[in-house]
């Protein structure tokens, strides 16, 4: 189970208090153990359910009780997963991380912003360098900045932009219809070289997994940009928020300029 809730800064730091306190006090450790028990107990009853096809056996009866009880006990698995620590880590880390990868990408059916059927490899292997990122149109945090970065990249590339293909894959394809993607593209002045892709949820997840950017669900995603010179070349992966100038610099370095 991966519960991750939005935490305002203050509750976030209180979450850290809790995890610190739990780690350091005896009663806290006991409480932590109790929570862990409850989780495994819950998982067990769910498993029991899986095997129960009759629909009215004992395990399910017992189950709901502790499950709804856990809501007001206020325990929160997310509390141990301290967002503030991440936040600090993010802030201390200057710039971005660059790495190179050979991703074994399978061809996955997708839909472009005109509503046409297409596929991942058809989009990537168009005989041009490509840049890829992952967004969803109702994201309020990372994606607007990621998309504004792509917008800035296309303007910094100037006439050179016709030689590159930029691709933004929706990680919320159920909501991001081709029409919504067109609207979004317009918001960021996307030129002809910049395509937005959607499709089915399973296929979007397959693409995310192919690039190792899948983080469980759309609310957990991270800022990653990928680029490749041509078919058969390694992928350059940029994790973190890089400036448009950085991306253009990496792009030129990749092209060998």
């Amino acid at each position, binding site marked *: 189970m991966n519960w991750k809730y939005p935490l305002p800064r203050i509750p976030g730091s209180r979450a850290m208090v809790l995890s610190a306190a739990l780690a350091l006090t005896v009663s806290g450790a006991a409480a932590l153990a109790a929570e862990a028990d409850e989780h495994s107990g819950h998982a067990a009853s769910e498993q029991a359910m899986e095997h129960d096809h009759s629909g009215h056996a004992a395990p399910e009866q017992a189950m709901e009780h502790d499950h709804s009880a856990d809501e007001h006990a206020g325990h929160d698995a997310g509390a141990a997963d301290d967002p503030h620590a991440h936040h600090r880590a993010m802030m201390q880390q200057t710039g971005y991380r660059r790495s190179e990868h050979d991703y074994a990408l399978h061809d996955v059916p997708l839909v472009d912003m005109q509503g046409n059927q297409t596929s991942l490899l058809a989009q990537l292997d168009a005989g041009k360098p490509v840049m890829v990122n992952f967004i969803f149109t109702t994201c309020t945090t990372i994606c607007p900045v990621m998309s504004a970065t792509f917008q800035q990249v296309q303007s910094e590339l100037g006439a050179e932009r016709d030689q590159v293909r930029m691709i933004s894959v929706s990680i919320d394809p159920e909501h991001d219809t081709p029409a919504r993607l067109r609207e979004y593209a317009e918001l960021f002045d996307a030129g002809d070289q910049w395509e937005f892709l959607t499709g*089915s949820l399973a296929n979007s997840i397959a693409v995310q997994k192919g690039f190792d950017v899948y983080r469980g669900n759309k609310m957990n995603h991270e800022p990653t940009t990928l680029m490749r010179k041509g078919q058969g070349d390694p992928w350059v992966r940029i994790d973190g928020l890089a400036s448009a100038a950085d991306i253009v610099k990496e792009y030129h370095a990749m092209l060998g300029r």
Partner: protein
Amino acid sequence: MISLRPFLGFLLFFSLGFLLVPAASVAADPATAVEARHTPEQVELGRRMYQEGILPSGELMTARVQGDIRLTGEQVICGACHRRSGMGASEGQEVVPAVTGDILYAPLRLPTLKPPLPPTQRAAYTDETLKRAIRDGIGPDGQAFNPFMPNYPLSDTELDSVIAYLRSLSIAPAPGVTETEVHFATIVADAVEPAARKAFLDTMQTFVAQKNVPTRNEDQRAAHAPWHKAWVFGPYRKWVLHVWELNGPRESWPEQLAAQYAEQPVFAVVSGLAPGGWQPMHEFCEGFEVPCLFPITDLPVIDDDDFYTVYLSRGMVLEGEAIARHLAEQQLLGQVIVQVYREGDAKGQTAAAALRDVLQKRGLQVRDARLQDGAEGTTAFWQSLIEDSGAGVVVSWLGASDMAALWSSGLPAKPPIERIYLSSTQFGPGADGIPPAAVDRVYFIHPYELPQKLNRLLLRSTGWLRSKRIYAPAEKRIQADAFFALKMAGGAMKTIRGYFIRDYFLESIEHMVDNASYTSVYPRVSLAPGQRFVVKGYYIAKDDGKGGLQAVTEWGSQ
């Protein structure tokens, strides 16, 4: 024996520092400060910048990220990141902090185990340091911000307005929350059938009653919380559920709702059941700024700008649009398409209008046939309908009894008919009564989990309902939807901890739904900021020959 003294500071710190002081200080200095120093006009100008990205001059606000990335318009709206509530959010590893005045103007302490007072993680802002933060991205202690926070080239006067607005954002508990209780309402109209009403209210009331059983002595723990647990148990409130009954004509409902609210304000409305459109309730919740979670309706209000009502499904509009899309995919748009609905049936009418709209946008016509109020779907009706129009495709928004004459007429098995679409919401989710010769031409729009998979999907709620002896198998969807709304409300209450802010409560729902382990009668639910419908998919399905349905399309795919 462990001395309690060192812990005392923490007890005070946690319970007062975090939970009481910010709330209390709203009544004390910041509030008076807002009044004394900022005019309502300033607050409004600040609101336009924060929530809409519009400068006092009327121009769009602009900003920079990472030195060179220019943002403007919707992308620079503070509320997009810090949210409408000002309580912030997190996505992946990015944490956007809370920016309400009372939080910013107090030191942010990162507590440790060393008494008596934890060190500050961030000094309290002053107007000057806050302006610098927004303009240059530098915190009160001089450290540079995370690059996700844009830099805003705003003038001093503009910044004064933003600050006036931030100070006006309150973390004081919303109406409907007392020190010990949180009030919720649910809505039931008198026209709801007795069996449905009972199944619904049983679910709502039993859940709340169980929630209030102090199985873990929450109320005691809240009062005598050990210091490190104060934040966990401090926010505990007993739930009080009010059933708002709506009687008589719909026109009088707004008044009835307002009167109920005046008598006892509620923090949120959870679920609800009323025939006809949800509009009166929707408008009430929007007007009174009360969250309204997951009413059970096929006729929601679809409005991108509204905030307070979160629905399960787009209902009949989704069904109409789904059929239009399937017709296009199956290349059936060249056929004569006739749709049938009953006059005065809001559901059928709404679905028909949605189908008509989509086809009209493509320059295509659909012929509408209405079954008069009081009339029955007779053989003669179907005969004349099909023969007169030469229909190749019939889309029926009718119930099973109106369809019986069509099945027995033999017409569906013969040309010109190629395809019949039924709504499983209206007709029922299965091929019962459809003759074998016709069944192959019949397709269902089915915006739920397939019938044969439903029992398994609902094990969690049926198990609970059975154990409470309130399970009503004939009202499966009602009980499942109500249970879903309650689970989500419970989860959101947990997430907001002691911050009983309605907007924050809704924002938590937006973030929680994708993680929901219970999805009611839908295979999948999903939500995101600004989205108001959790059901994104549907099946087009056919009879599977075993009493169930077989999907011919994928759920929720573009």
